Structures are given as C-alpha cells and as structure tokens.
C-alpha cells in the first residue's frame, strides 16, 4: 500500500519537473523563465523526496530525504530572488509583449523624491 502511494507521489513530482523544464525552454524572457522553472521544479523535487519518505519509512532514506526537503524550501526562493534582482539591476530588457514594470516605476519614484530632498 505504501509503495503505491509513494509511486503516485513520485509521478506527480516528475510531471511538475517536466512541465517546469518545458516552461524554461519555451517562454520568451528571463523573468518568465524564472517564474515557470523555479516554482515548478522546487515542488516537483519536493514531491519526489516525499514519495521516498512514504515508500521507505523513517529509515536512513527517510531522514536524508527530510533534510533535502527542508534544504530545498530554504534555498530555492533565495536563489530565485537573487537572480531576478541581479537581472533587473543589470538592465536585461523585458520581452516585447510585457505590459507593466512596477520595479522600474518604483526606482524612478525613489530617485525623484531623493532629488527633491537634496534641492530643499
């Protein structure tokens, strides 16, 4: 019974992995690729490790997989945030079909207020 539940969890995880990588290849822009790939692949690998825990129980397999889940939850959003910030700061252009860029508007607004303070 635990084998069947574990195989189902592993299959869900592999489906998320494959769709995330498909988004990484298909989408037109750095930010869109980041959006698709990071979340889907993180959830997919978490599903695979959860399936390992369910299949093997709390043996050495299970504890190592639990450490892996905690590490992925802590590390993957950090890396994605750092890459997105660096890409926007180094002026990589957005795709042509994108509509709005709130971060750029925020930076312009901040510069204007700083200039006013200096003039006063």
């Amino acid at each position, binding site marked *: 019974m635990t084998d069947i539940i574990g*195989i189902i969890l*592993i*299959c869900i*995880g*592999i489906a998320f*992995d*494959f769709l*995330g*990588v*498909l988004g*990484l*290849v298909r989408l037109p822009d*750095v930010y869109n*690729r*980041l959006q698709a*790939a*990071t979340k889907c*692949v*993180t959830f*997919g*690998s978490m599903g*695979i*490790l959860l399936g*390992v825990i369910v*299949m*093997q129980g709390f*043996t*050495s*397999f299970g504890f*190592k*997989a639990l*450490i*892996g889940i905690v*590490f*992925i939850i802590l*590390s*993957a959003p*950090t*890396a*994605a945030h*750092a*890459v997105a*910030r*660096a*890409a926007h*700061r*180094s002026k*990589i252009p957005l795709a042509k079909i994108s509509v709005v860029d709130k971060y750029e508007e925020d930076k312009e607004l901040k510069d204007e207020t700083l200039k006013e303070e200096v003039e006063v």
Partner: protein
Amino acid sequence: MKILKWTIGLIIFAAFFYFNFFIYDGELMLQLINVILFSSLLVLIRVIIGPTAADRIVSVDILGVLILGLTALLSIYYNESFFIDVGLIWALLSLIATLAFSKILEGRQLDD
C-alpha cells in the same frame, strides 16, 4: 515559421514518450529516471543557447534541484541510501554558485 517550430517540438516530445513508455521494456523506476534525464537534457540546451547570462545562471540553479530528485530515485532503485548525500552536496554547491554569480552580475564585489 512558428507552426514549424511547434510541429518539431511536438514530434520530439511525442517520440520520446512513445519510445520510453511503450517500446523500452525496463522497470517502471527506470522509465521515470529516463524522464528526468530528458528534462536535464532540455536544461542543457537552454544553458548552451541562452541569449543572456541570467538565463545560464537560472538553468544551472534548476539543474542542481533536478539532480537532487534524480539521486533520490536512484537510491530507491539500487537500495542504497548514500545517493541522496551526493544530491544534497550538488544542490548546496549550485546554490552557492548561483548567489556568487548573481552578485557579480549585479556589479558588486564578493565582499560587498
């Protein structure tokens, strides 16, 4: 041109899934491992043709997390638990490499 691209991609994916799940007669776990290996091949394509540097950094980060799942499946298939250790170290090194490269891409130094 766009229709040609869509058709080529669809043919490649359909051929891979047909050969993997209907012609190749391995165990189920080996078929699932093949899907992850095909995904990492797509990630390597993005590393090679990526137009900017940020694409390559994202791809290397994603490859580390994919390898962690691959090693978890390998540890179940061979019934040895030390494969997950290899995946953990791989993901840790890819996290550190991603943070360092993104800091350099932003224009700052490492001790900033």
